[in-house]
């Protein structure tokens, strides 16, 4: 019984970390109609940068996440007019054109990472990474608990921004009725850019979070991307709490599956779940 509880808790923690990695993608898809397949690749860059800052300067990964998030926000602001707007403009299906663009971007990033940091796997290990933390009578590694906390704070922060600030409401207005939004004076194009930059900013936090849990190499972004895409589809694009709920579900499947079933079954169960959900509720479970 104890192993069930332990793996359930570790699954929930993993789910929170994945929620942080997925929330930005869901935000960009739901609110700016941009399909960013480079989301986890950008997150992975930040994982490497956190690793670099830790090993060369002794900077804690939490601090690194705090520094990298605003930096990536600026990167997002720069990417929008240079790469994304030209790709979206005058295109019948922006989801298709942006997904091809960002797939290319992800591959470029992967190769740059191999060049700079070699294909060898890296691990972020701090003094506290493997210290046990007590949680509901059970123990979990501190690094995982911190990564989960980062993800949870990020998701709740985005939810708060969208629903409790005037700017967040304006962002939702643009997604729900672009003409209606322009007629009350909202600059729809500016809101899309802001949402995209915010989404790239969250990629930093999500990426550092996952890098604190898993060992990673230049191609890790792809495994992360599969899981994150699954979470976004199950949660419903743009549904922030849906993303959290889907991520927790995936975390539980991964946690319990990892403890009770052979490793090979994990993906089978997850993507089997995805098939069934796409058949029954193609717009997402929580939307």
């Amino acid at each position, binding site marked *: 019984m104890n192993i069930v509880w332990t793996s359930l808790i570790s699954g929930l923690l993993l789910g929170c970390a994945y929620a942080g990695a997925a929330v930005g993608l869901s935000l960009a898809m739901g609110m700016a109609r941009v399909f960013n397949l480079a989301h986890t690749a950008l997150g992975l860059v930040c994982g490497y940068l956190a690793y670099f800052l830790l090993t060369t300067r002794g900077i804690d990964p939490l601090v690194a996440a705090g520094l990298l998030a605003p930096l990536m926000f600026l990167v997002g602001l720069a990417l929008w007019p240079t790469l994304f707007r030209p790709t979206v403009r005058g295109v019948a299906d922006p989801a298709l054109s942006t997904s091809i663009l960002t797939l290319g971007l992800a591959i470029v990033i992967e190769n740059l990472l191999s060049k700079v940091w070699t294909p060898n796997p890296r691990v972020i290990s701090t003094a506290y990474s493997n210290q046990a933390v007590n949680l509901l009578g059970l123990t979990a590694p501190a690094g995982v608990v911190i990564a989960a906390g980062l993800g949870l704070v990020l998701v709740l922060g985005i939810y708060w921004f969208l629903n409790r600030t*005037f700017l967040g*409401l*304006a962002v*939702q*207005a643009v997604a*729900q*009725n672009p*003409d*209606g*939004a*322009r*007629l*009350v*004076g*909202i*600059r*729809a194009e500016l809101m899309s850019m802001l949402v995209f930059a915010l989404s790239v900013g969250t990629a930093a936090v999500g990426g550092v979070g996952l890098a604190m849990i898993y060992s990673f190499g230049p191609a890790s972004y792809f495994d992360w991307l599969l899981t994150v895409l699954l979470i976004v589809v199950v949660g419903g694009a743009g549904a922030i709490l849906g993303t959290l709920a889907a991520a927790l579900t995936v975390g539980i499947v991964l946690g319990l599956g990892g403890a009770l079933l052979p490793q090979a079954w994990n993906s089978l169960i997850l993507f089997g779940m995805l098939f069934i959900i796409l058949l029954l509720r193609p717009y997402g479970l929580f939307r």
Partner: protein
Amino acid sequence: MLEVRDLAVYYGPFPAVREASIRVEPGQLVGLVGPNGAGKTTLLRAVSGLLKPAAGRILFDGFDITGWPAERVCELGLVHVPEGRGLFPRLTVLDNLRLGAYLPRARVEMDRTLKEVFDLFPRLHERRRQLAGTLSGGEQQMLAIGRGLMARPRLLILDEPTLGLSPRLAYEILELVKRLKTERGLTLLVVSQEVLHLLNIADYAFVMETGRITAEGPASALISDPKMRQVYVGL
């Protein structure tokens, strides 16, 4: 206050509005009538900046606003409540109204305007926590007008505020439009299929057919014009 001169708007190669000229004087309620597909909505969308005109001039309050984007036009106090209402269906009634006062000019007076709108539409106050998409057609129309008022308009453009409403509700909405003019001194430009009622409350009206303005005059004169009565009122 608003002057549109020889406006032309195209959808691809197809002209939707050709050489259309209209005028709205301050304090007036002006009607724009005509059959479906005449180009009324296209004309209004070009005025508010949702569409770019191919030719012609649009002047508002001395500004040449031809080709301005909608968000800048709104800033001047020209507020357009579009056909189909333009609401945000998954936001609450209250949030829809608050977004109406998005621009700084309107936001500083948001609380006061909100109270005025709720006085005008007590029903919206009752439903303020409800999602806009769950309102009835009549309530959604009230919300659309309410949201337009939140922007503190100097000219309010209403495109088909009576579309899809029961005759009784359509009557109520147009009576309210009249009150906006008489009680608040608002200037309005209104399109409606309720031609007889609209001409009864309007000061001046334009008739549009196949993209052109084909008749204009004081509403009382148009209403007694035998040809108008035959075509639009069915009498």
